[in-house]
């Protein structure tokens, strides 16, 4: 399987969109392109299983290496392990749902779909990169489309939110940049510096430099995944963004950060990861608790989901910080689960908003009577968010908490207990929102005349729900997919401990 196709297909789609005319052509092309991505990601999963069951145990599959900037030893080096495959699957699910949800996006449609597809290109490139220069390149590719998507098609104080998001993410990537360059100059692969992830992981970087550059890389990636106290772009960005952009932001873009924290910061600088683990756990516990309580106070549906994303992404960082195999598997599962769930949530909110023209919980009510399908979608997303068994949220959080508990340190266990307790708060705000917006009496008589979900919205929600339920009912396949990657990270961490 040629992984570069994952970059070429979105690129070709984006160029085709530029040449198209009119909404119909543009959205058809976007749908064809994203369906292609979807099928390709499923094909990748299949090819990956085939290789693994054939006994191929190498760390990364389908590798391809091309010397891009030879004098600086920068390579276009790509390959996937189970962690990247699960991220690519997530991206493909969210992209196709995002395109379907924006089906009626008429205002500047060409630019809109172009940017959506371009954003997905950045995400795919990021997840398949095995060279940290290439990885950084794709990380930044994904920043500006978000700025334009929010600033042009957003609502509310969109310019402010767009600028805040772009600057904070750029600050994150500036920190990542310093971390990566610091790593680069501390490597020595055959007498030259290297950006190669595999090569760097095989050598030992001295502990002083690890401790110096780990915070840069981890905080930098952490900004993307709402690490406390750098989470402030999340609520503004998500609530101002158009529906598809919110889905992309929460579903894909925040995962870029989590993946980077795991793959680059923790994997390449294991000693520092161990040294800084208490701080990571402290910050992520604060994010979990703070995010959950901040959500309680929100009255706008999008703000509710945005703040709950802060809380849920805190779980991801908590799992990474705990540094046990199960907790890392849980963190990756949480990324996938949260990506699907939050995309579904934003899709449902977008559908409700486009009909009722309000997102305030207090003004909504009784939607189940008038738009039952959309309301059901909303309820499913909510139940997944609060971790009901049968949905992906339960599986991911369960794995994560089990893994966290395995870390025997009493303070870590305290953090685990606190994080578990936050689920109760989640249940409170989700059930309250569902109860008052979906159930109850019809608050506004206009609501009686609303049309229910159109075919594209049903399809979008259906695809995401299939993903959620597939993980929720049969979590084993995802677990098995992630395990080898997590084992490699653990082995590396273990080696780091023994070197001390």
């Amino acid at each position, binding site marked *: 399987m040629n992984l570069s196709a994952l970059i070429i297909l979105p690129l070709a789609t984006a160029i085709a969109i530029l040449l198209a005319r009119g909404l119909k052509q543009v959205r058809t092309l976007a749908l064809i392109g994203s369906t292609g991505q979807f099928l390709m990601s499923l094909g990748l999963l299949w090819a990956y299983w085939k290789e693994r069951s054939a006994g191929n145990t190498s760390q990364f599959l389908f590798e391809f290496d091309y010397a891009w*900037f030879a004098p600086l030893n920068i390579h276009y080096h790509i390959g996937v392990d189970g962690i990247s495959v699960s991220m690519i699957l997530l991206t493909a699910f969210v992209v196709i749902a995002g395109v379907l949800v924006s089906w009626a996006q008429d205002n500047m449609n060409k630019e809109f779909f172009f940017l959506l597809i371009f954003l997905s290109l950045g995400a795919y490139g990021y997840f398949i990169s095995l060279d940290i220069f290439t990885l950084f*390149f794709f990380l930044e590719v994904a920043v500006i489309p978000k700025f334009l998507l929010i600033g042009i098609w957003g609502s509310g104080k969109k310019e402010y939110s767009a600028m805040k998001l772009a*600057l904070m993410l*750029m*600050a994150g990537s*500036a920190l990542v940049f310093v971390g990566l360059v610091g790593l680069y100059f501390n490597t020595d692969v055959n007498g030259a510096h290297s950006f190669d992830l595999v090569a760097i992981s095989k050598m030992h970087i001295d502990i002083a430099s690890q401790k110096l550059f780990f915070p840069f890389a981890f905080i930098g990636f952490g900004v993307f995944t709402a690490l406390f106290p750098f989470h402030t772009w999340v609520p503004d960005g998500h609530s101002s963004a158009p529906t598809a952009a919110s889905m992309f932001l929460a579903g894909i873009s925040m995962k870029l950060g989590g993946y980077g924290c795991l793959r680059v910061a923790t994997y390449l600088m294991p000693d520092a990861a161990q040294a800084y683990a208490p701080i990571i756990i402290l910050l992520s516990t604060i994010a979990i608790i703070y995010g959950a309580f901040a959500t309680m106070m929100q009255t706008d549906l999008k703000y509710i989901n945005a703040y709950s994303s802060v809380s849920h992404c805190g779980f991801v960082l908590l799992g990474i910080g705990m540094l046990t195999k199960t907790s890392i598997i849980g963190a990756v599962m949480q990324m996938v689960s949260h990506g699907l769930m939050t995309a579904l949530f934003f899709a449902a909110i977008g559908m409700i908003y486009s009909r009722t023209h309000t997102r305030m919980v207090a003004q909504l009510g009784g939607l189940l009577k008038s738009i039952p399908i959309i309301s059901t979608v909303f309820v499913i997303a909510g139940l997944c968010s609060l971790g009901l068994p049968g949905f992906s949220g339960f599986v991911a959080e369960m794995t994560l908490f089990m893994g966290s508990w395995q870390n025997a340190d009493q303070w870590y266990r305290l953090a685990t207990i606190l994080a578990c307790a936050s689920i109760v708060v989640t249940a409170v705000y989700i059930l309250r929102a569902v109860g008052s917006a979906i159930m109850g009496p019809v608050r506004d008589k206009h609501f009686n005349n609303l049309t229910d979900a159109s075919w594209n919205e049903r399809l979008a929600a259906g695809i995401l729900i299939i993903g959620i339920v597939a993980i929720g009912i049969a979590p084993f396949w995802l677990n098995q997919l992630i395990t080898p990657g997590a084992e490699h990270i653990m082995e590396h961490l273990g080696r780091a401990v023994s070197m001390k």
Partner: protein
Amino acid sequence: MGTDFLILMKQEWMVIAIIFILMFIKIGSNEWKNERILNLVNILLLINFILGLFWNQEGTLFNEMYKTNPLIVAEKNILSLGTYIIALQAYSWLKNHQHVLEFYILLLSTLVGMFFMISAGNLLMFYLGLELSSIPLAAIANFDLEKRKSSEAAFKFIISSAFSSGLLLFGISLIYGLTGTLTFTELSQHLNGNPLEIFAFVLFIAGFGFKISAVPFHLWTADVYEGAPVSVTSYLSVISKGAVLFVFVSILYTVFKPIAITWYNILFILSVLTMIIGNLFAIRQQNLKRFLAFSSIAQVGFILVGISGASREGSASVVYFVLIYVFSNLGAFGVVGLVSALSGKENIDDYKSFYKNNPLLSWVLAISLFSLAGIPPTAGFFGKFFLLISGAGQGNYLLITIAALNMIVSLYYYLKVIKAIFMDPNDNPIEKLAIPASPKLALFICVAGIVLTGLMSYVYEYIYSLATSF
């Protein structure tokens, strides 16, 4: 000797030939229409650029006064390409101007001056080239004769330029007094870092600082850029600055190599100041020309970071960045110049909702600004990344952390322009502009350059293969 003389100096001869052709036309015929002259000049400059790519040799002439090698030829080609793009862009401005021929004669004289300056193997030759490249510039900075701001700009430029030349000359004479030679190769063997040499070197840096408008020698830049016609401004900010940067690198890396520690510290301070001040002032600007002036000051700060690397990567990344800078800055100036020539508007507020009527120009401007801000996949990302990598080669992570943080500040003001173009509402946006063919071609070249120079690693590898090790 005979053919050597022709081939080694082929680029100088080409430009001089173009100047003579233009002079003959001036003397011989008053009938030629402006359009015809402009098209002719564009074709000649294109030929100049293309011929510059062939018959590259290494060698010296006139007792090492003049030297050339593939890197120098490549640098000259970058300048020729930039001049060609500027000539294409100047079309809509010069179409109705009375003195088209004089403009190009003066402009190309400065280009010859720069060529000699880059090829200098001797401080005297360097100084002659520098003067030839700056005095005619003052004349063309005043080329909108009826505008008072233009004359003010020209006057400021000539005075600051004369002052910096004075400083440079003082430095040169001190160095001559200390070592008894002006040849680069001999100078590097004689310098040993005694205090008087350091003093001479500081004068040198001050002189160069004026020319490349590094803080604290930048005060003339904004006024001159604002007052001068857009084409001249873009020439000043790209070609003239690029040429001086090329020489600056080669002089630092060869002549002043013995006192590398001294200049490393000086560059460190200068680059930090230049980035910070340039960026902070750019935030406050309303006039797009002033805005680009301060942004170009900040860019010089990044280039100085790259120079401070003192390595083969350093010199390669500077040449590479200047090439990218030619495309990105000329793309931005091209749009600004076109809008200014066709509608007379130059303020950021006038650009609100620019996208509504001029989507193509908006995207060109946006891509150029993204490249200046260093956003992938534009070439600016690669240029900045490589500059900072070579800067970090010395192990100074503080410097690159400051530079990386400055990139955020610079992104802010570039995004402010993007926001005005794409997002801000405006009841009275700029009308749809009819773009003549040659500026269109120029913008196309810029965008193609911005997209391809970065992704095609061949360009960097080629420049790297030419660059000599430190």
